[in-house]
């Protein structure tokens, strides 16, 4: 019952720099289903960031058809795209990008506040940190955290509002091998227990090893699309029900 949450058909994106046109995507065809753990790989400049920005409704495609949760991104207003990001999407950035003046807990709480969560906001934020094993760091500001810790808090922030799709652009690029491992386990765990869908870009083969599906972009097109045998989304999904009952998150 893995339904399609993202569907790209012939998606193009052309950037204009004055007179020069830079084609970043030249026709991407891709479908992403609920519960996938998808790595986007490819050489530098192949269009990974561009595609993630489109998938995350941060930007609109130049051509083709891109549907995210059944909505045509090209047709959405700025406000509607913001609303979609707020309700359905989570982001993890390469540079962590936590709000520097807020503590780890407040960073997570702020997203819930934006969602309009009322009284139990603080408790929910704390529960998310606890679940990810970050309870001890709750009252520290980003400057008082290591890069690995910051990125884990960033993941907590991304998933706190129970998004159905989490997008991460090179989430481990600034981390050492050990912290990259920890982060991948964290994300994989969230996906296994809550059925959240993750799409992330990376250059790191060790990170790719964690992926269930690997999509390779070359020159703005999908060059390869491999699913790891035995790890198809539908085989993992039955476990979701159990985790939902026990966990704090869950769709």
């Amino acid at each position, binding site marked *: 019952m893995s339904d399609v949450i993202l569907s790209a058909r012939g998606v193009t994106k052309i950037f204009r720099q004055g007179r020069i046109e830079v084609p970043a995507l030249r026709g991407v065809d891709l479908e992403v289903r609920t519960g996938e753990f998808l790595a986007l790989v490819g050489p530098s400049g192949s269009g990974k960031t561009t595609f993630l920005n489109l998938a995350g409704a941060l930007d609109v495609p130049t051509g083709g058809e891109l549907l995210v949760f059944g909505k045509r991104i090209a047709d959405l207003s700025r406000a509607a795209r*913001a609303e979609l990001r707020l309700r359905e999407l989570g982001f993890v950035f390469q540079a962590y990008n936590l709000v520097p*003046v807020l503590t780890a807990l407040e960073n997570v709480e702020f997203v819930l506040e934006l969602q309009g969560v009322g009284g139990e906001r603080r408790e929910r934020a704390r529960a998310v940190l606890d679940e990810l094993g970050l309870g001890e760091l709750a009252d520290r500001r980003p400057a008082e955290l290591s890069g690995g810790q910051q990125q884990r808090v960033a993941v907590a922030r991304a998933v706190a509002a129970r998004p159905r799709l989490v997008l991460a652009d090179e989430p481990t690029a600034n981390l050492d091998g050990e912290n990259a491992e920890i982060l991948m386990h964290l994300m994989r765990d969230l996906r296994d227990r809550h059925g959240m869908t993750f799409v992330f870009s990376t250059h790191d083969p060790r990170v790719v090893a964690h992926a269930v599906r690997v999509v390779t972009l070359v020159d703005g097109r999908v060059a390869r699309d491999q699913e790891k045998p035995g790890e198809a989304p539908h085989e993992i999904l039955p476990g979701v029900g159990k985790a939902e009952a026990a966990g704090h998150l869950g769709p």
Partner: protein
Amino acid sequence: MALVAGKYALRSVGRNVRRTALSVLGIAIGVALALFMESMNRGREGLFARAAAYSGSGHLRVVPRGWRLRRDPRLRLAGFEADLAAARDLPGVAVVAPRARAQVLLAMGTHVVPIEAVGVDPEAEQRAYRFVRNVVAGRWLRPDDEPGAAVVGQAVADRLEAELGDDLLATVVGEGGRIESGMLRIVGIVRTGSEEIDASICQVTLGELERLTGLRGAGEVTVLLSDHRSAPAARAALAARIAPGDEVLTFEDLAPEFKGHLEQDKATNRFVNGIILLIVVLGVASAQLAAVLERRREFAVLSALGMRARRMVRLVLLEALALGLAGGALGLALGLPVLWLFSTRGLDLSRLMGATWSFQGILIEPVIYGDLGPWIVPYVLAVALGATALASLYPAWFAARTDPAVALRVAQ
């Protein structure tokens, strides 16, 4: 979005301490200056009220209908007694001074001075016209004074080369245009401090003026109120009670140029004030814009997380609110001692203008006392918050417009 957004805004203000301190100082100085200007403007209102009170013009004046246009001193009230009684019954009345006026030619020896003689109630007059109290020779009029007793200004005496006790020949145009004359004796000489005014003072009792002109009654009933702010209400109440054929004028009606002059002064002050505040607003705006630009990536992240434009505007305005409150508080702290000084000691313009200042026949003390009252708190809040909110509108709009895709691409 109470909690975290509030902390966020407050801590953001504290991020660049030096910039924040400079912004706060700028706002504070602007606020303090605006406060001072406003205090003095309100003080000018008081100057106006005091001028009305001391110069004999009064806050209200009952005159015969038609006097306002013709200004003929021979006109007499339609119902002097009724008007006087109505004025005395008015709540909040301090002094009621009836007067009658006449164009008089004073002569002594070969010297002649044309003047407007005023018949007064000696008791009331001294309280209504503060400057005639300055008798430098002789005495003030008595209620039942000897026939012909007159008090003249120093300049009048000088021009006639007359002294205390000298007799003057007074010639007036009386009832029906007949020329009447009588003798006056100088019993007192006053000096107001203004040549112009001293040259126009010739006061006798009401009875004496009646005798000279043959015109009965009084030409005006001047009313001084304990509080000038009650003038509009008192005017309406008085107008309802006076004799038909008479009307009530206010000080504004009597001295429109004076009022106009004051208003002009105030307008100039407001204009200067506006320019100062504009400079403050521009300064704060550029600081706020710099703060927003520095955090472009942060706003892009917030946008990516789904923060709507309206909330982002609110966040920046919240930061402005914190700046404004701090600036307002400091401005109040800076301005209060100055305000207190000028409200108790006053701004003395006499060095510029001479001891007293006459403006179109109205004598005023050239001291402006700044106004200090509970109005300063809402005023400071309004100015400080208004200025910072205004200064933050563009930066807030700029922040809300951040394109998350572009900003996130920007290298660290």
